[in-house]
């Protein structure tokens, strides 16, 4: 008894019953069968905004911790910088206090938000005097900007992606996928708990993927330039995008002309973004100097990255000078991402693109120089997009990634939302483990045991005085080990993908 679902286009011609995707699929099925299909997306939005806003009621990074505070203050400070100072000073003003070190689109974004903030309450963005400003009103404003950015940029891209990836007709799985992507715990807790605007860069990335898999290469290149110019971390994705475009140029008709066009588009996009800022060379160079601070060190803080993990055994930083380490890490990174890149170049299909984005960003995360623990969000994005293709691994990866950020979240007093988001997401995605084979279930559940052990010990036993960081290092060790497993597995999956897998490029949308 499947009735037409209101406004949403659906061809309910399935002969087999849809796969049981758990509790959330029951909800969408109920809506569909009660002629409420048009309400499905709305219910997803309402629920996810509700949850994200609840998370944002918790603390943010650096709340009430002078003199430097944390990421929240950094973002607020950038509103102040951009809205008050002339442009050439954006990347030069008092660099010791949260100097702007993200590329230009972030600066423009801050500038727009700063103008709005100044209209509401000029004290929030007053030069210098607003440092460390904390009030309920400011918190609500900043939280709201993160939410609006996400729902304006990231969410529509995800909805389009799910429609394309799953197909318009598959009403229930499509909506389940959208809901699960929007409830991805790591992104929620970093953007709406800790406080950052990762959804902007990730949003541009999903738009890039959307354009590329629909064959709109030029638009895709523009989107990717925007992602790069929002956060330099998007470089983690640059190689697969490059390999994919290059590969397509060898396949498509008029490939050489396409290649030239793409190159011109990229150069033009960069030129426009920078021209809006300044035409003087020193200004432009200063942006680059701020965005790529090589002198900072091999890794920052404790991060679940190979260099940090092996530092327990081998003190690399004492054995080699900085320059050598930079070369070693670059070499290791390139080696780790090269196979997947070449594979994508030889066979540039949509599915392989998403896998390659995952493999490349995970390789970068594990082996690159100067990585933040939050950068795990980059490999998580393609991994989450693949949730219905790799249910077990995608959920597993997400859980481990959350765990890898736990030391940071604990510092920000985000333990409660950490637990709740994981519970909610794993409940909604519990079909992933239910449908897995018995062996897979055992392996995954076993891998959670050390994680639970670390959590239990950390909650009950204070760390020994000799090793104050022991829990953090245990978390780094466990996460790095599992990330390496994921890297191998997803590489294996990319190489063994059957090329018949849909969706393919130029497959006109069924909607028309």
């Amino acid at each position, binding site marked *: 008894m499947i009735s037409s679902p209101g406004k949403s286009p659906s061809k309910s011609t399935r002969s087999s019953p849809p*796969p049981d995707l758990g509790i959330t699929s029951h909800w969408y099925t109920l809506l569909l069968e009660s002629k409420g299909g048009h309400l499905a997306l709305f219910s997803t939005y309402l629920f996810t905004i509700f949850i994200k806003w609840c998370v944002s009621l918790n603390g943010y990074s650096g709340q009430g911790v002078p003199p430097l505070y944390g990421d929240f203050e950094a973002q607020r400070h950038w509103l102040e910088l951009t809205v008050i100072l002339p442009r050439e000073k954006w990347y030069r003003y008092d660099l010791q206090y949260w100097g702007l070190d993200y590329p230009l689109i972030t600066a423009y974004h801050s500038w727009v938000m700063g103008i709005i903030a100044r209209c509401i309450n000029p004290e929030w963005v007053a030069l210098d005097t607003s440092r460390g400003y904390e009030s309920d009103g400011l918190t609500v404003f900043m939280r709201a900007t993160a939410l609006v950015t996400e729902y304006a940029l990231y969410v529509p891209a995800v909805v389009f992606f799910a429609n394309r990836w799953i197909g318009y007709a598959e009403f229930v799985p499509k909506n389940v996928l959208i809901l699960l992507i929007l409830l991805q715990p790591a992104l929620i807790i970093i953007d709406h708990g800790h406080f950052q605007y990762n959804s902007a860069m990730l949003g541009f990335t999903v738009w890039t993927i959307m354009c590329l898999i629909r064959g709109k290469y030029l638009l895709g290149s523009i989107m990717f330039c925007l992602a790069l110019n929002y956060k330099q971390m998007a470089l983690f994705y640059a190689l697969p995008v490059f390999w994919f475009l290059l590969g397509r140029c060898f396949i498509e008709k008029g490939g050489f002309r396409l290649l030239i066009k793409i190159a011109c588009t990229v150069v033009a996009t960069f030129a426009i973004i920078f021209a809006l800022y300044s035409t003087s060379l020193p200004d432009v160079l200063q942006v680059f100097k701020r965005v790529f601070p090589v002198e900072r060190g091999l890794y920052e803080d404790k991060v679940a990255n190979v260099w940090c993990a092996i530092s327990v055994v081998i003190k690399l930083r004492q054995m080699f000078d900085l320059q050598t380490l930079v070369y070693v890490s670059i070499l290791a990174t390139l080696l780790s991402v090269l196979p997947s890149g070449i594979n994508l170049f030889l066979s540039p299909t949509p599915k392989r693109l998403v896998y390659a984005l995952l493999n490349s960003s995970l390789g970068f995360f594990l082996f690159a120089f100067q990585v933040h623990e939050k950068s795990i969000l980059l490999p998580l994005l393609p991994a989450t997009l693949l949730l219905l293709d790799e249910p077990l691994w995608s959920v597993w990866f997400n859980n481990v990634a959350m765990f890898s950020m736990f030391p940071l979240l604990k510092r920000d007093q985000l333990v409660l939302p950490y637990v709740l988001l994981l519970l909610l997401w794993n409940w909604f995605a519990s079909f992933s483990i239910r449908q897995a084979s018995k062996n897979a279930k055992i392996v995954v559940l076993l891998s959670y045991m050390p994680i639970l052990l670390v959590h239990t010990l950390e909650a009950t036993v204070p760390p020994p005085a000799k090793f104050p960081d022991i829990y953090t290092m245990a978390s780094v060790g466990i996460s790095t080990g599992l990330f390496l497993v994921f890297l191998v597995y997803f590489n294996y999956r990319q190489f063994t993908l059957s090329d018949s897998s849909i969706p393919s490029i130029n497959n006109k949308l069924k909607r028309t």
Partner: protein
Amino acid sequence: MHQLKASGKSPSPTGSFIAGMSWRDYAPLFLFAFLVKLFLIPSYRSTDFEVHRNWLAITHNLPSAKWYYENTSEWTLDYPPFFAWFEWILSHPAQLFDAKMLEIDNLQYASSGTVLFQRLSVMASEMVFFAGALRIVQHVRDRRHRLIFLGIIFWSPGLLFVDHIHFQYNGFLYGIQLFSISAMLQNQPIIGAILFATILNFKHIYLYQAPAYFIYLLRSYCFRADRFSFPNFLLLGAATIGVFTASFGPFIAHIPQIIARLFPFKRGLCHAYWAPNFWALYAFGDRVLIHVARIIGLSAGVETASLTRGLVGDTVFGFLPDIKPVHTLLLTVLSQVPTLWKLWSDPTPARFIDSLILCGFGSFLFGWHVHEKAILLVLIPLSLLVRKSPEYARIFYVLACTGYYSLFPLLFRPAETVIKTITLVAFALFGHHFLAMLHSVHGKSSSDFQVLPWERNYLQGLIPLFLYTELIHPVFLGPDKFQFLPLMLTSIYCSVGILYGWVILYQLGIS
């Protein structure tokens, strides 16, 4: 396309203790609500949070004889004895979370352990409400209708606002009431009476509904075939008095003190924020008349403490006659007489519920110092009637949207604006959808559930009201300037809809 195997297994009904329902069906409804409420733990807490912490400390540290005399905190114990015992029981697990919350002079204490414990205690006690709702819906045959009905009762935005954000323990009391109503429906009047007497001894606000219980039990149980049955009367009396003895018996020497605490008539007619009832319109009428008089040069003669300044004292009107508690009592009783008369002449369980709702409604509209939260007294029992007819569903929908909206000023911080708005929008949208589904006719595309055009317009009017009171006014005038204006507008607008709902509901209940 993706590697999901379609598992053909359908959930088998296992372990059902409620007739015809398996836990697989209803557990997700509870768990989902539970999770959402856990997410709300860091949200705004009113002074009621401190009130209940203080009661935990009082009952934990002092012998029961001193409970109603302790006044270190201004939030003295002013609920009946069962509630005090409830706090006493809660104070034991509270030690495991944070023993410091149990110190009487540790005022305003709100460590994360304290917040977690108190919030969790509300959620845990609310399981009674869920069980009561399950009992009410168990006779519904169709599985889907049963779940939707359960959702409409259990997922009340009002309880979410009042219990899980603002902080109170209404859920489990309404749960006991649902059990009481269910017993009455199943012709077990003694159990129904005992349960009702029990909640009365938890929270005396339920006195508002007592006339309906009294009349119905007297008529249907004590009169059999128009002849007074003295044994039945004795039995009923003994049961009720038994409950009161259990409650007040241990406090026999302190009853005057308890009564003084339970009924503080020193408070004014209206609360700082006028509950959207008859008196809100009355007070508003008075304001208007004062201004009219000023304009035409008549001296009103009184420049009194304004109702709207937040003073909880005696309310003095400028133009209209002053109101004393006895007037409100008279009006309340008058509003209840017709429905009680009808109940007396036709004592069926269905009429009993109608009457119960209308008694609570009359008290809400005409009572002395009524809180806006008391609208739950109308809306929770009314939610049990959404399947009765499309008219009941319609009036429930209109009253619930208006009544829950009228709770918005309770959660006044900007941070909760998103939460309360989403909750109400979700209720308005999906409540409408599923009420229509409950009353859809097989084979017809439209539903018998139709919100009338003017009702729809009225509810849509809440949107500009919301935009003005929650966004435009605080951003452009600042939250402190003309603070009374948004409150008054909300209260006046909502009282119109609520009075309208009362009239319609009275027509339905009397016919």
